[in-house]
């Protein structure tokens, strides 16, 4: 294992950030509300908290000692939902999702059902036992790979993700490039994720993407498609860091002051339903980690899932939602108000 496990933070309910202003209040002050769009475009499935890394900002609190993992039966229910409702995209995350024994089955069946499959791949898991063929597996199933790399330099990356992670990540990127991923104009998409190494907001996605492309090519000869900038969410392990470092109040004030109403329409919770390792449904992966389920009148588990019931329904919110509406906004696909 690459990193020592950080202490597990036990209770989601007490792990909510404190904010001077309520998120719903802020929306109302701008004449806005937060409701789901007409369609569910993505089912995002968190297949477990087991990970070969234990990153300091991880909102999942994932690590090598976590035992929560989705069973084959629940994975089957996910596949059934994708097939029955023709869900356009299955987005698989964790932990390191590849460490779930049902991972390859889930990918293969979702592809067979016609869904696009995104895997949130941490790069270093490729060097764990039995995982060295991942580039070929991804290619064979035309998986879109999304990988975290918080900065194009070793110091910043290792400070957040653990000693030695940067070098392994670069080697993994080379292997993905060799398999045809991240080549300009190619069909195999390799997108990277930037998130700040500390209590500050991400830079302009467009500007930092140019830096990443230039520096990773010049220094390491690797290429990728897009860079997504993601804001660190004030929950779980990152919230613990904010509290430990005396930054919680300042960070929350920063998020609130940077509230951008133009981000609300593009928030991922409007078109995505999140599934946890037990099959329970949430409005997003962050709500999942706070154990804040979908509205009570909606189906609560993937076995009862019906996307038509989610149309126009209320999204459950909390102070952490300011993380997705600050500046250019933040989602699993990066900034949501680019150019705003």
């Amino acid at each position, binding site marked *: 294992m690459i990193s020592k496990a950080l202490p597990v933070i036990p209770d989601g309910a007490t792990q909510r950030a404190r904010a001077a202003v309520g998120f719903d209040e802020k929306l109302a002050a701008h004449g806005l509300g937060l409701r789901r769009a007409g369609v569910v475009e993505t089912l995002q499935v968190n297949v477990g908290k087991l990970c070969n890394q234990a990153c300091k900002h991880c909102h999942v609190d994932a690590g090598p000692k976590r035992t929560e993992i989705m069973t084959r039966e629940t994975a089957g229910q996910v596949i059934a939902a994708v097939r029955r409702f023709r869900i356009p995209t299955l987005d698989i995350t964790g932990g390191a999702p590849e460490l779930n024994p049902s991972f390859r089955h889930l990918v293969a069946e979702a592809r067979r059902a016609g869904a696009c499959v995104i895997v949130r791949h941490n790069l270093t898991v490729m060097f764990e036992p039995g995982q060295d063929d991942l580039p070929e597996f991804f290619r064979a199933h035309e998986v879109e790979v999304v990988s975290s790399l918080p*900065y194009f*330099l070793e110091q*910043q990356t290792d400070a957040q993700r653990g000693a030695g992670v940067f070098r392994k990540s670069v080697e993994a990127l080379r292997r993905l490039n060799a398999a045809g991923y991240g080549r300009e104009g190619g069909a195999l998409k390799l997108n990277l994720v930037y998130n*700040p190494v*500390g209590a*500050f*907001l*991400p*830079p*302009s996605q467009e*500007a*930092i993407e140019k*830096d990443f492309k230039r520096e990773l090519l010049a220094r390491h000869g690797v290429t990728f498609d897009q860079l997504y900038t993601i804001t660190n969410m004030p929950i779980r392990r990152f919230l613990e860091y904010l509290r430990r470092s005396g930054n919680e109040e300042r960070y929350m*004030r920063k998020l609130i002051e940077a509230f951008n109403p133009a981000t609300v329409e593009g928030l991922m919770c409007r078109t995505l339903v999140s599934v946890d390792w037990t099959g329970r449904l949430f409005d997003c992966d962050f709500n999942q980690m706070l154990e804040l389920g979908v509205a009570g009148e909606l189906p609560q588990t993937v076995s009862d899932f019906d996307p038509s019931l989610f149309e126009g329904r209320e999204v459950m919110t909390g102070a952490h939602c300011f993380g997705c509406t600050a500046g250019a906004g933040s989602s699993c696909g990066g900034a949501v108000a680019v150019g705003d």
Partner: protein
Amino acid sequence: MAYYEEDDLGRFSEVGKHRPDLFEKFMAWYEACQEDGALSRREKALIGLAVAHALQCPYCIDAYSQACLEAGSNMEQMTEAIHMASALRGGASLIHALQAHNSVNKVSM
């Protein structure tokens, strides 16, 4: 009471309590200066950081350190900017040695 309080940075707008018209003019100009133009926001943030060090303003150093990070700069780049400011300050002192030379030469045989 300490002369500099970290929280005072967030209270900057209180400066506008007296003659708000002047403060508003200042803020409009200040904010316009930050926008992307012939120079990028990142370049401007690095200039701001350098100037903050030359002025030795703790509020500005705090504000522009954050601005640089949020513009995607790293500590290597920020440190080079700080060295530029420091080198200019050093050079600006050092060139005054010529004033001393002139002064000494004026009264020397």
